[in-house]
């Protein structure tokens, strides 16, 4: 890109700077407002520096109820979506081509369905069966699309699985259950673990589906939304700051592990390519 004129280059760079300020400054303002003594969370005017809002947050009983509920729902979602997601991925891997694309379309459809509609259909369906809204319904509603995420993650790894390993084990007299436990599952484990983490995260931050299915129960996201509308103090900022800190740590850890996995895959591919060339050379 040496032929680019420096003027257009400068404009692009300026635009990038503005873009990243736009992207990150609001989050910074939200975090900084935690330390302002002002009752309404803001940075202008700055009335004095304090950490009192963390204390106010810790003393808020509702927050603890919401947090506990969110954790319970998240764990329940993991327990439902991970086994079903693995089963669905294995099924998808095993069926024939035509059935596969059909099944795939049905399986990923919840990912393209708006969260509010998943919530509404879950609410209406279970109401007809006599089940009222509550955390249990939020678990079911959230799982219906989170399973698809787990399925996609496990599928991606399953595609690279060497099936001759399975066949060899069966030929040597292993039972199907043994083959699954000793060969397939250990191979899938990293994807299963990543799927579980993603499932919890998706559940924890879910609002749209939860809104319609929750009944009168309150999760952490519902708590935050209601606090912003009524009774907003910088205690909400304190919570936001804590959640963002955890998120950043998690995002960095996830990025690192993803890059390691990508590097491993690239190395494996390179080895395979080298082996291929060696084989070709031998044949020649």
């Amino acid at each position, binding site marked *: 890109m040496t032929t680019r004129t420096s003027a257009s280059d400068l404009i692009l760079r300026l635009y990038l700077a503005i873009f990243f300020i736009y992207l990150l400054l609001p989050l910074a303002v939200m975090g900084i407002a935690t330390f302002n003594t002002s009752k309404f*969370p803001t940075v202008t005017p700055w009335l004095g520096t304090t950490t009192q809002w963390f204390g106010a947050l810790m003393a808020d009983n509702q927050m603890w109820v919401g947090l506990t509920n969110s954790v319970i729902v998240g764990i329940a979602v993991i327990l439902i979506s991970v086994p079903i997601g693995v089963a669905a991925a294995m099924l998808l891997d095993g069926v024939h081509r035509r059935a596969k694309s059909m099944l795939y379309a049905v399986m990923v459809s919840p990912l393209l369905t708006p969260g509010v509609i998943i919530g509404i259909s879950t609410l209406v369906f279970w109401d007809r069966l006599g089940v009222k809204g509550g955390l249990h319904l939020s678990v079911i509603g959230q799982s219906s699309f989170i399973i698809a995420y787990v399925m996609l993650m496990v599928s991606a790894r399953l595609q690279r699985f060497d099936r001759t390993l399975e066949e060899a084990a069966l030929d040597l007299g292993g039972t199907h259950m043994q083959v699954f436990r000793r060969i397939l599952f250990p191979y899938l484990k990293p994807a299963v673990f990543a799927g579980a983490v993603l499932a919890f995260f998706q559940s924890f931050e879910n609002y749209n589906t939860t809104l319609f299915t929750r009944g009168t129960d309150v999760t952490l996201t519902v708590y935050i939304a209601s606090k912003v509308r009524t009774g907003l103090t910088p205690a909400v900022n304190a919570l936001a700051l804590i959640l963002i800190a955890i998120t950043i740590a998690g995002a960095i850890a996830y990025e690192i592990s993803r890059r390691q996995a990508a590097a491993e895959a690239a190395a494996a591919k390179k080895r395979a390519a080298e082996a291929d060339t060696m084989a070709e050379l031998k044949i020649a």
Partner: protein
Amino acid sequence: MSELVKRYGLGITTAMVLVTAFWLIVMVVLPALVMVEYSFHTNVPVTKRGGPEDYYTLDNYLSLVRGTDWSTWTFPNDFRVFLRTIWGAALVTLLSLVVCYPVAWYVAKLAKPQRAAMLLLLLVIPFWVNEILRTFAWYIILAYQGPLNAALLGIGILEKPVRWLSGSGGVLIGMVYAFLLFMMFPLINAIETLDMNQVEAAEDLGAPWWQIHRRIVIPHAKPGIAVGCIMVFVLAASSYIVPSLLGSPGTRWFTETIYVWFFEGQNWPRGSAYAFILLGLCVGFIMLMMRIFRVGLADIAK
């Protein structure tokens, strides 16, 4: 099927099929069908269900447009909200595309690898932050006494503070901010695969920069543009938190109308009908994009 049994054994195959069927039938397909069926019912209390007042009707759908007068361009309230939602979501989609494109181009092609990795991390972090918190951040910034007004007053652009949160502006700004990264990553992924020799060849032949983008980069990025537009449009059209935090009664969104019919109007059949209409809007948009840009379902789910 027989191949599955041969590979996994009868026990595992049965378990696999059963749990997958449970998911797809009981958790995905049936709820959707029941919701649609319910939307054709009259609104009667539970005790009168199946009685003479409980019959099939199109009324819940027709009520959306009832009272529309095309000659004077007046619409009933719910329909106006619906039209505003379509228009708003389309605008948010277009704005996101315009805002993201230069950044995606830079990160995917112009930046040196190390710098690109750094910028990607800066993009990933806000992407993982909860949608409510991203919206809340703008709630603080756009507040009447907030930093935006203070800054604009300070440098003399404004004479008096603006009520950002009482018009559609706040909702649009918040939505672009909340959903823009769903445009960014598909764009980066698509542009990354472009062979830069094509660009260099065009430059050597004297093409100006905008021709290069119009004739080479944008056509190549089509799948990414399609996926990004689908994601942002669906998220914006079905967003509840952004209009409820950054909007005012005058800027109600269709999801809020649905919520009101469910929990304040206690009219579930109508709420279901409106939810189905919203779903139809999203599916219609997805199919339109898939046709225009010729992409498949597998590209989107990535």
